[in-house]
C-alpha cells in the first residue's frame, strides 16, 4: 500500500536579512494511513518546520526550495497557493501549541469550527454549526450544543485545545499534524489531550504526525519515531526499537540527559549526561556529520563526510558511521547504555534521614532549618470598578502552608499551574506580601518586616526565573546586569564588583568577555547560566528557582541542572526548586512538597514521595507525567488525574482535591484532612483515605510529642 504522506528529499530555507537558514535539509519520511509518526528533536532541529512545510504555512522568508511532498500520490509541494488552500484544513488538519493564540477571541467557537466546513464543504451556516456540535461531542466537550455559543476566553486551557482539535477534525482530514499539542498545558490535561488524539486516530482511521520535544509524549503514542537534528532526520524506526536500542549517538545522548533516567532509587543520584555545546548554526552548517562537534564518538571521518541515512537491521535507519547500541536489535532495555560512564561523579543520595526528619515534623534535630514557612496564607482580592475597586471576592492562592527547608538541601515544590507554587516562591523572595503566616529565614521573620527593612534583607534570598531572557533588561550589558544587585545593596567598591563579576561568570562556565555582551546575544542555556550568576552574585543563602529549566531543551536542561548541583555543593546553597515536572524535581530535590490548589497535600523525602506516594493526587500526578519508556507508558492508559483544576475563588469545601479524587467520600467534603505523618522520616500527607496506612507507631509517637502536624 502506498503511504498516505510521502516526503522526499525536502529542503526548506528561511531567508533572513543577512543570511539563509537551511531549516530543513533533505528530509524524507513516509506516514501510512492510520499511523502515528512521532517527530522529536530540540528546538531548531527542524521538526516544526517539517510540519509547517507540509502545511505550507512557513514563516516570513520561508520557502520550500526542493523536494516533493506526496499526499495520496499527489505532489502538494507543487500546488499553487490557491489549490493548497483546499488541501489545508481539508485533507490535512493541524493543531498548534497554544490553543489561546490559535483561536480568534472575537468569534464563538461554534462559528470558528463551522468556518472550515463552510469553506471546504460549501455547507450552510446551520449545517456548519450542526457539524461543529458533532465534532465537539467527538472531542469530549461536555454539552456541545450549548458550548458552541461560547467565546474562547470562557473555556479553560484544556477545553480550548479540544476546540482546536475539533476545528482540525471538522473536515475529516486524512492526516492530522499535531505540533507540540500539549506543551502549553498542564500534565494532567496533557494526558487527557494525548489520549483524545490517540482515541480519535483509532476511531477515525486518520494518520497523525506528533511533533514534540518530549520523549515521554512520543513513547506512549507514536508507532514510529523520527529523530531530527539540525534539519535532518538522524534516526527513524519503530518506537519500541528506538527506545530499547537507539543507534545514533544523539538519540542515545538525549536519553541519558533525561533526569528520570538518572534518578534511580538504588544508585542514588547520578550526574546527568551533558551533550556539550549547542546545535549548529544552520545559516552555515558544518560539513560532515552535523552532530560530530558534540558527539563523544566522533572521529576525523565524521567531520569530513556526512553519513547517509543507512538501513541497519529491520527498518531501522540512522545517519552515523559509528552507531551505538547493538545491530541485533535485541538489547534488554534494562542494561545501561554502553557509554554510561566510568568516572562520572555520583552524587550521594541527598535525602539522608536526619535531614529529612528535620523537614517534616520539626523534631529536635541538629539541623536548624534555614527557611521555615508557617501557616502561610496568601489571598488575592478580586476587585471590580476602575476607581472604587470594590472587593468582590478573593483567590485563595496559598492556604495555610507550612514547611521547613534545612540549610544546604533542596526542597522541591510540584503541582499543576494554579496550585500556588509560584506564589509561595514570590512570597519568599518578597515580591508579594503574605496575608497571614510567617516566613522565617536565617532566624528573621521576613513577613513581619517593613518594606524598607525587607529590601535590605533581600540579599539573603534570590530568585532564579524561568525565562532568564525576560528577567534581564535588554538594554543593559551583562556587566551592568550583574552589577545591579551589588549597586542596590551597596556591596563593595567598583573594582571589587568587577572582580566579583569575573569570578561569578567563571563559576557558571561563561568567559569573562561575556560581561561586554547584551542578553540577546546568548543562547537559552547561556542565559540561564547568567540568571544563575545574577542570583548568586549577592552570595545569598537561599535561591528560589521558579521553573528554571522548563523552557530549555533536554540537553541544555541537563547542563543547567548539573551546574545547579555543582554550585550547591561548593557554596552550601539551599534551593527551593519549583517545577511542574515531577521527574526534574525528583532529580534535584531531597524533599518534595506536592501542592494542590493552595494546599500542601504531601511532603516527604523525594524517593519516598515518588515511589511510595500516599496522597491520591501525588499518585495521579506521577501517573500522568509521560515517561520515556514505551512499555511503561502504554501500560498506564486511563490512569492519572481526571478533570480540571477547580476555581481558587471558591475552592471545594473540606479536602480541595475531592472533586477529582477517585476515593472521595462524604467525609472529604465535610472535613479538611490535616497533614499527618506516615513514616518516621517526615513523610506526611493530608488525606482521609490515603493509599497506604501510616507506619506502625508513627502516628502515636508524634501525637504524644505534640509537634506532629505543622498545620
Amino acid at each position, binding site marked *: 500500500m502506498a503511504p498516505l504522506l510521502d516526503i522526499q528529499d525536502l529542503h526548506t530555507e528561511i531567508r*533572513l*536579512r543577512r*543570511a539563509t*537558514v537551511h531549516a530543513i535539509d533533505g528530509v524524507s519520511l513516509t506516514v501510512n494511513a492510520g499511523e502515528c509518526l512521532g517527530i522529536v528533536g530540540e*528546538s*531548531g532541529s*527542524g*521538526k*516544526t*518546520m517539517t510540519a*509547517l512545510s507540509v502545511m505550507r*504555512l512557513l*514563516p516570513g522568508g520561508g520557502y520550500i526550495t526542493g523536494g516533493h511532498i506526496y499526499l495520496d500520490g499527489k505532489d502538494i509541494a507543487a500546488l499553487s497557493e490557491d489549490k493548497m488552500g483546499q488541501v489545508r484544513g481539508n485533507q490535512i488538519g493541524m493543531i498548534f*501549541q497554544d490553543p489561546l*493564540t490559535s483561536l480568534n477571541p472575537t468569534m464563538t467557537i461554534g462559528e470558528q469550527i463551522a468556518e472550515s466546513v463552510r469553506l471546504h464543504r460549501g455547507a450552510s451556516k446551520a449545517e456548519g454549526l450542526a457539524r461543529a456540535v458533532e465534532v465537539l461531542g467527538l472531542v469530549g466537550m461536555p454539552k456541545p450544543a450549548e458550548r458552541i455559543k461560547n467565546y474562547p476566553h470562557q473555556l479553560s486551557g484544556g477545553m480550548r485545545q479540544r476546540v482546536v482539535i475539533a476545528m482540525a477534525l471538522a473536515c475529516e482530514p486524512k492526516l492530522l499534524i499535531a*505540533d*507540540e499539542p500539549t506543551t502549553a498545558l498542564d500534565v494532567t490535561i496533557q494526558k487527557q489531550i494525548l489520549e483524545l488524539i490517540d482515541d480519535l486516530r483509532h476511531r477515525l482511521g486518520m494518520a497523525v504526525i506528533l*511533533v514534540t*520535544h518530549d520523549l515521554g509524549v512520543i513513547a506512549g503514542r507514536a508507532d514510529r519515531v523520527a529523530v531530527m537534528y539540525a*534539519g535532518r532526520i538522524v534516526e527513524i524506526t519503530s518506537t519500541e526499537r528506538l527506545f530499547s536500542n537507539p543507534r545514533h549517538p544523539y538519540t542515545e545522548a538525549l536519553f541519558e540527559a533525561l533526569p528520570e533516567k538518572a534518578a534511580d532509587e538504588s544508585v542514588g543520584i547520578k550526574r546527568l549526561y551533558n551533550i*556539550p*555545546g*549547542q*546545535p*549548529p*548554526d544552520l545559516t552555515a552548517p558544518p560539513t560532515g556529520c552535523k552532530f560530530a*562537534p558534540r558527539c563523544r564518538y566522533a572521529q576525523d571521518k565524521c567531520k569530513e563526510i556526512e553519513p547517509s541515512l543507512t538501513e541497519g537491521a529491520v527498518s531501522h535507519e540512522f545517519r552515523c558511521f559509528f552507531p551505538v547500541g547493538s545491530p541485533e536489535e535485541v538489547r534488554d532495555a534494562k542494561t545501561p547504555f554502553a557509554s554510561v560512564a566510568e568516572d562520572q561523579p555520583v552524587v550521594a543520595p541527598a535525602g539522608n534521614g536526619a535531614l529529612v526528619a528535620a523537614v517534616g515534623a520539626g523534631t529536635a534535630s541538629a539541623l536548624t532549618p534555614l527557611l521555615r514557612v508557617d501557616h502561610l496564607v496568601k489571598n488575592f482580592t478580586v476587585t471590580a470598578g*476602575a*476607581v472604587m475597586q470594590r472587593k468582590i471576592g478573593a483567590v485563595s492562592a496559598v492556604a495555610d502552608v507550612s514547611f521547613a527547608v534545612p540549610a544546604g538541601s533542596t526542597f522541591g515544590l510540584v503541582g499543576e499551574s494554579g496550585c500556588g507554587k509560584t506564589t509561595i516562591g514570590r512570597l519568599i523572595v*518578597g*515580591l508579594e506580601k503574605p496575608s497571614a503566616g510567617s516566613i522565617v529565614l536565617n532566624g528573621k521573620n521576613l513577613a513581619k518586616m517593613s518594606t524598607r527593612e*525587607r*529590601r*535590605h*534583607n*533581600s*540579599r539573603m534570598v534570590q*530568585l532564579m*526565573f524561568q525565562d532568564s531572557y*525576560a*528577567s534581564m*533588561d*535588554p*538594554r543593559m550589558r551583562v556587566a551592568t546586569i550583574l552589577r*545591579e*544587585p551589588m549597586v*542596590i*545593596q551597596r556591596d563593595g567598591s567598583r573594582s571589587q564588583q568587577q572582580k566579583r563579576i569575573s569570578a561569578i561568570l567563571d563559576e557558571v*562556565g*561563561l*568567559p569573562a568577555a561575556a560581561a561586554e*555582551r547584551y542578553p*540577546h*546575544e*546568548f*543562547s537559552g542555556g*547561556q542565559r540561564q547560566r547568567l540568571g544563575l550568576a*545574577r542570583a548568586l552574585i*549577592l552570595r545569598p543563602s537561599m535561591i528560589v528557582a521558579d521553573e528554571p529549566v522548563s523552557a530549555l531543551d533536554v540537553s541544555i536542561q541537563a*547542563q543547567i541542572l548539573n551546574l545547579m548541583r555543582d554550585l550547591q555543593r561548593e557554596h552550601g546553597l539551599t534551593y527551593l526548586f519549583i517545577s511542574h515536572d515531577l521527574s526534574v524535581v525528583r532529580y534535584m530535590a531531597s524533599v518534595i512538597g506536592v501542592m494542590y490548589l493552595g494546599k500542601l497535600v504531601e511532603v516527604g523525602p523525594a524517593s519516598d514521595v515518588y515511589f511510595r506516594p500516599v496522597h491520591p493526587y501525588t499518585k495521579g500526578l506521577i501517573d500522568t507525567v509521560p515517561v520515556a519508556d514505551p512499555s511503561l507508558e502504554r501500560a498506564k492508559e486511563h490512569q492519572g488525574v481526571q478533570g480540571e483544576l477547580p476555581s481558587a475563588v471558591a475552592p471545594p469545601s473540606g479536602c480541595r482535591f475531592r472533586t477529582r479524587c477517585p476515593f472521595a467520600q462524604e467525609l472529604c467534603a465535610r472535613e479538611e484532612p490535616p497533614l499527618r505523618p506516615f513514616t518516621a522520616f517526615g513523610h506526611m500527607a493530608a488525606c482521609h483515605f490515603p493509599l497506604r496506612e501510616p507506619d506502625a507507631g508513627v502516628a502515636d509517637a508524634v501525637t504524644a510529642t505534640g509537634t506532629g502536624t505543622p498545620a
Partner: protein
Amino acid sequence: MTATTATPAPEAQAPGTLPAAKPRSMFMRGLEVFVENKLALVGVALLVLIFGFCFLGPLFYHTDQIHVNLANENLAPGPGHPLGTDQNGYDELGRLMVAGQISLEVGLAAAVIATALGTLWGAIAGYFGGITDSVMMRLVDALLSIPTLFLALVVVSLFPPTEIEIILVIALTSWLTTSRLIRGEALSLRVRDYVQAMRVMGGGSTRAVFRHIAPNAVGTIIVNATFQVADAILLVVALSYLGLGIRPPQTDWGGMLNAGLNAVYDGYWWQIFPAGIAIILVVIAINFIGDALRDSFEVRLQRR
C-alpha cells in the same frame, strides 16, 4: 514551540564561547539598523538641508524682513526676487528662511518639553498604578477635554503671543498624549520579569522608573517625540492661520501660508507653494526618521 521560536537561532558556539561579532555599543547597533533604512537617510538629508537653508541661508542671502515696502508688493518670481514677494513687499525666499527658523524652533522646543513632561508623568502614573495612576490620569483626561485651540486662544488673549509663549502653549497641551502613551508602556513594563528581578534584589521605585522603565520606553519616547515635532509645527500653522500665531513682522511658515491664502484667487502661487512644500517636507522627513528610529531601538531587530 511556535513557528517563530522554532526558527533556528544563530547559535553555533560551544557553551563557553560567544558570538563572533565584536561587542559594540547599543548606539552603534542602532545606527547600523538606522542606516539600513534608506528613507530615513533621505529624511536626515532633507532635514539637514532645511536647517541649513533656514539658519545659514540668511547669512548669504540678505533681505529686509522688517520694513514693509509696498512698492514691491506681490511681485512674481523674477530677477532680484527668486520667489517673488508677498503683499507687504517682503522677499518670499528670505521670508521662507526666517519663518522656517521660528517654525523649527517652536516645533523642536515644544516637542522636547512635551516629551519630558509627558514621559515623567506617564512613567510615574504607570509604575505606581492604583490611586496615584487614577488621579494623575484623570487630570490628563480633564485637560484633554479642553480643545487645544481654545486653550491657546485664552492664553494668547491674556498675554501677547511671543515665540516662548507659543512654545509653552503647545508643549502644555501636547504632553498629554505622550503621557498616556508612556503610561501604557509603563503599565506593561512594570510587570516585566526584569523589573521584578530588580525588586527581588531590593531595588526601589526610583530605580525602577529611571533605570528600567524609562530606558526601555525610550523607543516609544523618541518616536513619539519626532511625531510631536511634526505636530507642533502643524499646530503653529493652525494658530497662525487663526491669527493667533507669531506677530508680524516676524512670521512662521503657517503665517506665510495664511497670508498667501488671502491671495489664492489672484493666482499668486509663489505665496502659497514654497511655505506649504516646506511644511510638508519637514513633516515627512521627521516621520521617516521616526519610523527608522523605532526600528533602531528595537533590540531584537539589531541582531539580524
